[in-house]
């Protein structure tokens, strides 16, 4: 009977922790929840002086954004640049990590690994002035190639480092057997290693995509013409200094967040534990 009492006391304590925890978290997530709420609200209802959670529901903002704003073009640009950069960065990182993982004693290995780790910590933002000058001289300002190369380079260090840790856990017997059967190095990497290493490859690809999708400074500086703008720069233009169209801003904000939100909700447990493993290992 005492145990029933202890159990109900424990239940009350549990309930209190859950109630406090969920309240804190909902308040924490509120700014974004509010953006979503506003994006489904009528133009007239946005500028009311009283704070209301529920008003009339409409999808007209989404229709307007897609039909008569440049946002669909920003989306197309971002999707193209980010997917290309993610694909290239992941492939190059896999090949590089394989080289570092399977060949332990080539000359300069240590030095090159240090280069990878320092560039990972290097504040690349500082390089925007010289990179603009270099890309201008190459005629690559307003050419997606400069942005794609930048996003590949920004993501390579973390991707190589992360995949190196992953490949080191895969037994060498696997690729040695493939090589015995006459496979080339590249065939071994993409046909034998990739199917085994894909959980690590997925994590690396997601982080590369998200960091490219969020990136602002390089997109702002390297893509100066209206038709080459990516989502973050285009969205920032919507709340520029003179004209603020809040319903468009909020609707575009929701769409801009959708890819990263979906990726993290589907893969959250894996992404979080892989990231934590990476941080702890460093």
């Amino acid at each position, binding site marked *: 009977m005492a145990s029933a009492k202890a159990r109900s006391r424990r239940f009350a304590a549990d309930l209190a922790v859950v109630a406090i925890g969920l309240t804190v978290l909902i308040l924490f997530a509120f700014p974004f*929840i509010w953006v979503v709420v*506003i994006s489904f609200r009528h133009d007239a209802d946005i500028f009311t002086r009283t704070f209301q959670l529920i008003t009339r529901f409409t999808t007209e903002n989404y229709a307007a954004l897609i039909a008569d704003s440049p946002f669909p073009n920003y989306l197309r640009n971002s999707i193209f640049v980010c997917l290309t950069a993610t694909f290239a960065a992941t492939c190059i990182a896999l090949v590089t990590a394989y080289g570092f993982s399977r060949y332990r004693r*080539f000359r300069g290995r240590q030095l*090159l690994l240090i280069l990878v780790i320092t560039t990972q910590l290097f504040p690349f933002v500082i390089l*925007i*002035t010289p990179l603009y000058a270099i890309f201008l001289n190459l005629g690559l300002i307003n050419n997606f190639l400069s942005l794609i190369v930048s996003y590949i380079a920004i993501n390579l260090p973390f991707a190589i480092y992360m995949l190196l840790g992953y490949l080191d856990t895969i037994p060498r017997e696997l690729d040695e057997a493939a090589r015995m059967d006459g496979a080339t190095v590249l065939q071994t990497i993409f046909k034998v290693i990739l199917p085994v290493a894909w959980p690590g490859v997925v994590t690396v690809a997601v982080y590369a995509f998200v960091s490219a999708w969020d990136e602002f400074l390089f997109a702002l500086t390297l893509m100066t013409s209206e038709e080459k703008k990516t989502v973050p720069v285009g969205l920032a233009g919507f709340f520029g200094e003179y004209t603020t169209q809040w319903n468009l801003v909020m609707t575009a*904000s929701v769409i801009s967040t959708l890819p990263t939100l979906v990726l993290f909700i589907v893969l959250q447990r894996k992404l979080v534990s892989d990231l*934590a493993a990476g941080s702890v290992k460093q």
Partner: protein
Amino acid sequence: MVSATTDVPARRPARRRTATPFGLVLPAMLILAFFFVGPAIYNVALAFQELSLFDLGKGGEWVGLANFAEVLGDPATGRSLYNTTFLLTVVTVAVRLALGLALALLLNASVFRRWRLGWLVRSLVLIPWVTPPVVAVAAWKWLLDARYGVVNQLLIASGLIDQGIPFLAKTDTVWGAIQTILVWRELPFVAITFLAALQSIPTDLRDAARIDGASAVQFFTRVVLPLLRPVIAVVTLLTTIWTFNNFVYVWLATRGGPGDYTQVLATQMYTTSFVDYRMGAGAAVGVVMSVIMFAFALIYFLILFREK
């Protein structure tokens, strides 16, 4: 690339050891050299030149230390140095470490696992972090709007103020607003990293401490904190470097204004190069930033190694 088809196994290792690894790592190393090493050197060269954005093709004129003298002699640089190191970096890193640890401890309560709320809790924590920084600034600009923002409407309704406060336009509130935006967006990274570290602490450690008569506070200060130290060290290093060089929050929230009250080194560098079109002076700001970051990393690793 060296072919793997060879009938003499004994000859294989010797040949492959030399050519193949270089071939495999070369493309990545070339990209890193092109993107990081080359521009870093070119940036130092640019810092000693007078060069307008419009004369990039022609090349600049060597002016020695003039850019550094100008940048370091400008009182605006002193302000952005203080803004960057203290208001942008030290304050928000400290707040993130404290709140991140508190949030991680709360979410580590076993009840969330027992009641199968782990997925919901993790999703809610991650929401600010999956929001692109541009969206985070947009959301907060709207929340903090003087007339229609939720924050001002709640403050007016509660009778604390009569008129909405333009938080991002007044000098006494603007830094608090920027820090709030930054901490909100970047706190989840700290919280989930700490949470993962807490979850890697074996539960029997806690039971053992309880049997030995340790209180919850003693367990936290004597067992949990020492175990978390390496993670705290890494998170501090990473967030400090990322925040010190951050451009996007200040730029989108205030453009460095009102006046240059919230100017930080990254926005000063961008403004000098791409608004005033003075690439040489902008490069000099970049060099100043790298020197500070290098000094920080050096001191950080010296302390870390001395302790070991």
